[in-house]
């Protein structure tokens, strides 16, 4: 028994979250000392603001990954639902109804993802990848007319403050990211569905036998990730006055997975908290901000980010080994 405590402690001492957090702090200090202008209040706010969208998407992804799933349709959902909203407003619809329709679209798409994974039992990676293509293709063909880029009309009104405004000197995207982080934290920590999400990710069969409604909970997870995608999309669009639907073809979805896995959330489900996502987001924020100040080329930034992702995934498999076979043996 004593031995087992020791083992837990040594794993605790090595946890990926702590490693990543230490790296973040180290990089922060190095940049603060050697990079001119890094430590300025404006740069730090810009840093946080630049990763707030990523962080919000990461919160949605966290919920799905905890349930042993993955949502590759987030970026497509975000781009198309918000682009359609903007288009509707541009066509003369009121802001309220347009926002409601856009949000309903995002929820419907994520509902379909959830149904495919939970009820049709298609593996999450294929179901959401296919849905990503479907959402983008359907949106471009049927919802959004004209070019890839949908520009914000003047009638977007107060909503354009979401990406641009400040409250008490702090940019609203940062505030939104913080509020959502608190909400997701409370959902996971205090709600039954959050509790069940962890159990389903840990052992879906055991969860089912325990009387947990596994399938509806999985659908809920995807719908929450769809909600995160819509909020992230609104921030993106209002910050730059437009929604470029080609973002679906970028590697943004990998960045989302990057911050989730980097912070120490296990892709095998059941392990991770909001704190992990925050740590992962901060690392990417500091890294990208520093590299931008140092004027490192975008393509090289991608190389560096991808190497970090690989290292994070390797660390995940070493620190959170999951041997599915051990459960299947045992015949003496």
């Amino acid at each position, binding site marked *: *028994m004593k031995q*087992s*405590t020791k*083992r*837990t402690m040594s794993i605790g001492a090595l946890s990926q979250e702590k490693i990543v957090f230490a790296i973040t702090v180290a990089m922060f200090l190095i940049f603060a000392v050697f990079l001119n202008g890094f430590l300025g209040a404006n740069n730090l706010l810009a840093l946080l603001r630049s990763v707030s969208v990523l962080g919000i998407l990461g919160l949605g992804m966290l919920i799905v990954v905890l349930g042993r799933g993955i949502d590759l349709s987030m970026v497509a959902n975000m781009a198309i639902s918000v682009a359609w909203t903007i288009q509707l407003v541009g066509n003369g619809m009121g802001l309220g109804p347009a926002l409601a329709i856009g949000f309903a679209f995002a929820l419907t798409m994520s509902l379909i993802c959830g149904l495919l994974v939970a009820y049709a039992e298609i593996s999450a990676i294929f179901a959401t990848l296919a849905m990503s293509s479907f959402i983008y293709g359907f949106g471009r063909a049927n919802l959004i007319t004209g070019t890839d880029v949908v520009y914000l009309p003047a009638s977007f009104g107060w909503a354009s403050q979401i990406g641009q405004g400040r409250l008490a000197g702090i940019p609203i995207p940062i505030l939104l990211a913080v509020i959502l982080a608190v909400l997701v934290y409370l959902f996971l*920590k*205090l*709600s*039954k569905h*959050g*509790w*069940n999400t*962890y*159990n389903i990710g*840990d*052992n879906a*069969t*055991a*969860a*089912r*036998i*325990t*009387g*947990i*409604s596994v399938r509806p909970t999985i659908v809920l997870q995807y719908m929450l990730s769809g909600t995160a995608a819509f909020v992230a999309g609104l921030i993106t669009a209002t910050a730059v006055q437009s929604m470029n639907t080609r973002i679906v073809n970028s590697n943004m979805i990998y960045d989302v997975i990057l911050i989730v896995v980097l912070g120490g959330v296990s892709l095998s489900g*059941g*392990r991770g908290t909001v704190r992990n996502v925050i740590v992962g987001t901060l690392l990417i924020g500091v890294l990208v901000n520093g590299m931008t100040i140092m004027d490192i080329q975008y393509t090289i930034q991608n190389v560096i980010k991808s190497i970090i992702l690989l290292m994070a995934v390797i660390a995940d498999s070493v620190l959170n080994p999951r041997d599915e076979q*051990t*459960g*299947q043996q*045992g*015949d*003496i």
Partner: protein
Amino acid sequence: MTTPVVELRDVTKEFHGNFAIRNVTFALHPGEIHSLLGENGAGKSTLTKMIAGVHAPTSGTVVYLGKEVHFASPQEALEAGVAMVFQETSLVPSLTVAQNLELGNEKPLNRLRGLYISAQQFLQSLSFDVDPTALVSTLGAAKKQMVEIARAVRHNARVIIFDEPTATLTPEEKYHFFELVNRLKAKGVSIIFISHALEEALQVSDRITILRDGELVVTDEVSAFDRDSIVRHMVGRTLSHAIHGEGTPRRARKAGTRVLSAQNLSMGSMVRNTSFSVFAGQVTGVFGLIGSGRTETFKIIAGVLKRDFFHGGEVRLNGKPVRYRVPRPAVRDGIIYVTEDRKLEGFFETKSIAQNIYSGLIGADLNKHAVVRYSEMAELAKTWTEKLNVKAIDTDSKVIELSGGNQQKVVLAKALVQKPKLIILDEPTRGVDVGAIAEIHAVINDLAESGLPVVMISSYLPEILSLSDRILVSRLGRVVEEFSIEEASEEKIMYAAVH
């Protein structure tokens, strides 16, 4: 007397301090069919796995063809001529029959046509009617067995071990199988045959060895046995009588109301038209050998098995017909199933003891507050770990780090917090240490005393006899016999369970 092909000399095999095999000496002669009989867990599989290189003996020696051997793997044993045909076949389903025959012997480049022709000739030489180009996944159980056997023969096996080969076969397939076994025997191959089917063993064997609790009971020519004497040898344990306080006659607890009744329940080939009842305030023991459908029967009742496989029949809970497609409504109605495989479907391995127990409460919607309350969880965990005497540093320890007995207690606690109105315990003491077994048995008795209907599925006869008030014996997917504890005996139960 010829020298034996395989000899085990005084072998012992220990798993984590439990003896699976203890000081067994065994000899297999050339060209004989040797049946290995015993209850579930008697050590038949372990014994043969030591011959086939799956397990290494803890002590003692394995002698093959007069030389001491230490096979490191089944592959090595196969190359030396010892083949084991497992219960679950070891073929690759997505490859063809010919490719499977060649498995492990592939040349760097294979021409499929050549492969098929040589496989065809080979299968014909064994007069096996199997298409070498067919995918293994499309074959029936018997044909898969044939391919397994062909693979063994192809490796010039001199010893072939069959682990429950006939359990999945139809009568006609069985007939072909035994024809084949006799042909192999004529070629001088020695065969070990593990089975629960006593008639078959009596029909085909030359000699029979019976194991009980990991020890050798008797080895003799088949003519020295009949069905009755085999059953007596399989169950006649004196040691365990003392442990389980048996021998002191026990009176059955009085039956309460009829809580559960099943009428003509069926599911595929696993559960066939079975009917039985369960009463309040009693332990209903369910005994059956592997493949008797006892677990499946109760998994249907608790909604664990999906309705896709449900083929009719009626289940009544307190007189009201119920039909659960998922466990959730069953759990809310108070039917709690405690699994036989706690690691696979019992507990949450990344979670603590407290979290696991509290998950039971949440799963049954019995938590007092709308949100998760950590004080409620801690209190619940404290109450139940004390009640069931779970030994751990504290309730924040991970379940995966506990011993089997303590894990089982946590799974039991998780079920009991759900306020069961009918509890189904599937092998409640499998992989549990002796001390914890006694504690779990005491809990089961208390549950019945408190008026709860308890169903206890077990393949361990002393457990059945020391706890049950009524005993249902399951065979081939149905409850075939019912005993009250007063009239039951190990012999009678075993007699009803074997076919």
